[in-house]
């Protein structure tokens, strides 16, 4: 028997996140989109309300929310603005490797303070020549005494300018290894904010490591565990990315629906035209499908089951649906969908990144196919 209902606690969490979104996120979305200003005050309020660092275990001061609960919060916040949502949720991606592979000392040192005051951390894996192909990372870590010395360039690092520490994937000889690197270490150089197509509230920068000394105690797992940790992280975070994309779809649907019910053309409401109403029906149906994929992927990992295929399915499907929905929303709004005074065009710009970050859609399909190749019969 399958139960599709939310528990009272989950329902409460959704409502709290929705109230926060309506009060803080959506009303400020256009301003942050235009100015590119990092939404620190909104993050502070999210922190105060417990919407940041949701995955940090309770013994380190966090809420220890399940991945599914995190998805519910993320979907709501990203319905208001996925750029602000990314700024709020950026910590989760960098905290996941520490939660998964960190020692109790590492967790106490790097996770616990983040639950006491507003702080940021960043996941620094991508490099200029190594995006989807993570195995190509060139950043080196050379063992010198009891320290490692890191050299390399990380690119498109979310929250990179404001982070207090980074999860860094580097090569120790040929072994990919994960490190926690405090941002105030000598030799850490943060670049300027990248001007991206969308999600302007999100802070994306280049971070350069020049002879950065990292104590051995800050290494995550053993030498050579880095790639596995980085990939395992995605099984936990991709359902959340799918949920963020679903937030965009939900925003697109709500905006288009609100518009189509009030705008009149040819002496009738816009929604009375099948060409418009069918678009709305498709958006709703695809949103439901994308949600179920995200929820299932989250539920699997919460129950200790491998979800690599389901997380990839959820991520690419929800991303594609968000992109389609944003474009359909802009189309329904007509000229108003193309002006930056209305929220539709921002959705189009914001949605695109979901098909790219945390593994491009093509990578997700490769993961699904890789799983299929090990399957005789799909049941």
């Amino acid at each position, binding site marked *: 028997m399958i139960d599709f209902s939310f528990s009272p606690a989950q329902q409460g969490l959704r409502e709290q996140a*929705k109230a926060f*979104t*309506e*009060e803080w*996120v*959506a*009303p400020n*979305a256009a301003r942050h989109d235009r*100015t590119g200003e990092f939404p620190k005050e909104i993050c502070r309020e999210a922190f105060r309300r417990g919407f940041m660092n949701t995955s940090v275990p309770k013994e380190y001061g966090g809420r220890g929310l399940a991945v599914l609960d995190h998805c519910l919060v993320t979907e709501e916040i990203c*319905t*208001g603005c996925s750029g602000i949502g990314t700024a709020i949720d950026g910590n989760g991606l960098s905290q996941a490797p520490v939660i998964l592979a960190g020692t109790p000392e590492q967790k106490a040192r790097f996770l616990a303070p983040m639950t006491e005051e507003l702080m940021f951390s960043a996941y620094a894996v991508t490099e200029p020549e190594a995006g989807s192909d993570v195995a190509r990372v060139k950043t080196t870590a050379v063992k010198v005494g009891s320290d490692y010395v890191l050299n390399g360039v990380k690119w498109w690092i979310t929250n990179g300018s404001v982070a207090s520490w980074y999860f860094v994937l580097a090569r120790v000889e040929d072994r990919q290894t994960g490190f926690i690197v405090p941002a105030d270490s000598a030799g850490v150089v943060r670049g300027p904010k990248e001007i991206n197509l969308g999600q302007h509230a999100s802070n994306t920068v280049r971070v350069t490591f020049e002879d950065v000394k990292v104590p051995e105690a800050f290494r995550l797992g053993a030498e050579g565990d880095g790639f596995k940790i980085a990939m395992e992280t995605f099984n936990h975070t991709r359902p959340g990315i799918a949920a963020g994309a679903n937030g965009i779809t*939900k*925003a697109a649907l*709500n*905006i288009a*629906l*609100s*518009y189509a019910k*009030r*705008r*009149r053309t040819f002496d009738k409401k816009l929604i009375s035209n099948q060409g418009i109403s069918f678009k709305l029906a498709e958006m709703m149906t695809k949103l439901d499908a994308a949600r179920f994929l995200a929820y299932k992927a989250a539920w699997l990992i919460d129950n200790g089951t491998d979800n690599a295929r389901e997380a990839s399915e959820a991520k690419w499907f929800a991303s594609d649906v968000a992109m389609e929905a944003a474009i359909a929303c802009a189309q329904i709004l007509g000229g*108003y969908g193309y*002006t930056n*005074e*209305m*929220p539709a065009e921002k959705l189009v710009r914001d949605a695109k990144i979901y098909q790219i970050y945390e593994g491009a859609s093509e990578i997700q399909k490769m993961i699904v196919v890789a799983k299929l190749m090990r399957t005789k019969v799909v049941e």
Partner: protein
Amino acid sequence: MIKDLMDIAGRAVRPFKRRAYGRTFVCPVCHLELAFADVDGNGLAVCPVCGAVISLEAPYGHAVPVVVDMEINRAQPKLRLHPMASHLPVGLFPVACLGAGVLLVASLLAPAAWPTALIERATLLVLALAVGLSPLTIAAGVSDWRRRYGGRPYRIIRLKLAFSACFVVLGGLAVALHASGAVFSPATGLIAAASPLELLAAVAYFATLAVNLVVVGTLGHVGGNLVFGR
């Protein structure tokens, strides 16, 4: 540089604006910033600049204004007195401030060669004109508001009225201080400050001018928005 300064000013003004306007949305036609409070009981607001009749909903906090009609051939001001009259206080007041500033510098540096007595008289005259004519400007504005905008209680109009009243009160105070002779010596035109009371009067005078300069600048900016949109 200018953009940075405008950003800083925008950030400083934001909390005040939020209190004055509440939640806002933008007219999708002329881009004038309107308040949610401008929406009437039928869920409609009429943009005072372009006449767009806007139906407003905010699903998930996203303002979605839909233009359902356009008010065209709206009543025009009979004499267009307000746009012309408003330039008197908006234009003259900064000149008066400039005169007061020159007198302040002259008083500090004491250059005997400057015609300070003449500047002091001229400053008072310009100041009195700027403040004295402002009730006429306000009356003309109220008349236009009733005729052209149907007397709708827009937040932007309320803000203008509040700032106008503030301008008259503070301006009146500045004129009174100046005319009393407590701030500037009538003989030399320089700041008197012979007693603590006169010093206090001088400080109050310049503080009043500074605040009113911000007030009149805001009035000009808001009035410009109301005519041309954003």
